[in-house]
């Protein structure tokens, strides 16, 4: 999520297919990545929304994200030429978190790459980087004789421990066979043509559903009848922080390399060995020489103001790093954050100080995620 300091008149903003429902539900709307998006809904505070997601189920409108489909005989080669995932090694109908990188190894965006088959790749990436991402993919498609199309459907994330149970009522597909990051074509409550991926960005079990635009409101209302509550981008940002997940533009950007961001797991060894994506040599070099600084989790002293993006970190009076995301965690009842610190100060338990306005107080380096993530694994 990016900060938007300038208010753009709502009439110039794009609307998702769920915009009418957001208004009907009295959401407080704000601009995000050129879209008029719900931040919170009337009568449901952010802490309540977070709690409902962690104990029951919430629905997030993420239709603003860029969805693309890359097709052709060389689709796997094409996508691998611009991102870090080992798509060739992925089974059909599975997805992976991956990165678009530049020639310096910097992160241009994070994305979910789904391999439908060897000839078809389905990609979901950040709304804030949509223009850049589409251009990257267009160039890759052209270079390898593939076709690229923008998918203009509704996209919702249904997240929480009851997500599978709620969706199962509407489909004959056995969802218990789908593990985290696996995908399937579904018919849900009589609506056909839904692409489901068992993922999300909250740390909970759940599904992202790409739904024909004309049917997304009907399906969302159906899920709401069964106990799911709409949740806004405010809750989503808090949930992803609790789950230790990066927000592009805050926690990672084009100057951050994956080892420093602790995202080397998105760059498999096989791809590092092949060396055939932008900046691979630089990423391998940083991995070998160790990065100067590393992304860590932070828990801040109780009773002090929340440390947010931009707060400076100190050790013995010396400025050593910065907070890249931060805020209250309703689940933990603590102020948490993530930020970058020198490698020698990155060990969990390290005591640091943080400055918020004129207050200087304690910050402790901690492991992430802050909460136990509940990703689902199918029984064999």
């Amino acid at each position: 999520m990016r900060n938007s300091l300038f208010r753009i008149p709502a009439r110039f903003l794009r609307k998702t297919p769920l915009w009418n429902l957001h208004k009907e539900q009295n959401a407080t709307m704000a601009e995000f990545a050129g879209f008029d998006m719900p931040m919170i809904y009337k009568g449901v505070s952010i802490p309540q929304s977070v709690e409902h997601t962690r104990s029951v189920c919430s629905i997030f409108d993420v239709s603003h994200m860029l969805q693309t489909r890359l097709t052709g005989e060389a689709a796997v080669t094409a996508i691998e030429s611009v991102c870090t995932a080992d798509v060739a090694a992925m089974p059909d109908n599975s997805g992976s978190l991956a990165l678009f990188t530049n020639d310096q190894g910097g992160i241009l965006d994070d994305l979910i790459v789904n391999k439908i088959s060897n000839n078809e790749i389905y990609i979901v990436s950040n709304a804030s980087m949509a223009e850049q991402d589409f251009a990257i993919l267009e160039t890759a498609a052209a270079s390898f004789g593939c076709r690229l199309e923008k998918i203009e459907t509704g996209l919702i994330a249904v997240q929480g421990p009851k997500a599978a149970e709620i969706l199962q009522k509407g489909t004959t597909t056995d969802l218990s066979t789908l593990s985290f990051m696996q995908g399937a074509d579904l018919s849900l409550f009589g609506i056909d043509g839904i692409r489901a991926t068992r993922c999300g960005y909250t740390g909970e079990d759940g599904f992202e559903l790409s739904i024909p635009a004309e049917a997304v409101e009907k399906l969302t209302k159906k899920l709401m009848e069964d106990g799911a509550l709409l949740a806004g981008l405010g809750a989503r940002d808090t949930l992803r922080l609790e789950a230790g997940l990066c927000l592009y533009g805050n926690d990672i950007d084009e100057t951050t390399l994956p080892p420093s961001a602790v995202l080397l797991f998105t760059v498999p060894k096989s791809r590092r060995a092949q060396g055939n994506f932008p900046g691979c040599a630089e990423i391998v070099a940083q991995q070998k020489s160790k990065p100067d600084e590393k992304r860590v989790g932070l828990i801040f002293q109780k009773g002090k103001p929340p440390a947010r993006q931009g707060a400076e970190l100190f050790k013995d009076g010396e400025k050593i790093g910065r907070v890249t995301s931060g805020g209250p965690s309703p689940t933990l009842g603590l102020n948490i954050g993530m930020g970058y610190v020198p490698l020698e100060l990155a060990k969990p338990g390290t005591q640091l100080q943080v400055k918020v306005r004129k207050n200087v107080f304690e910050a402790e380096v901690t492991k992430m995620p802050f909460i136990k993530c509940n990703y689902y694994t199918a029984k064999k």
Partner: protein
Amino acid sequence: MSLVCRRIVQNLTTINFTRQLAVTHRQLNLLFTDDHEWVKVENGVALIGISQHAADALGDIVYVELPEVGDEVEKGDDIGVIESVKSVGNIISPVSGEITEINEELADDASTINRAPYDDGWLVKVTVTDDTELEGLMDEETYAEFCAEEDN
């Protein structure tokens, strides 16, 4: 309070405030600023808080930073900060004078502001040195119209 909300809630929503204003404040005699603060002057001292409308817009308030007793403030000064889960708002002094008292209870439970912004959720008391500074503040009805206009 100037709503310099750095992250999210930028659009104020009209949640119940017209009704509440009608019921409660007519007797309270509050004046409102266009920074969504209220002022009540008694014996040369201004009691200051934020409006229900502002409290609702901020959402769950988690932290309040107030000035110190004895601080000299000018009208328009940034004298504190109110933070909710996703927003940060600055408290702007509506008058010039000396801080005579702050609401210490808020350090333990800042959410009092959400529950009772016109009562237990007050913020500070400031001596009023120049009565003319109060001219131009809005009564409840004008403030309600001001909020409705701002929302559009």
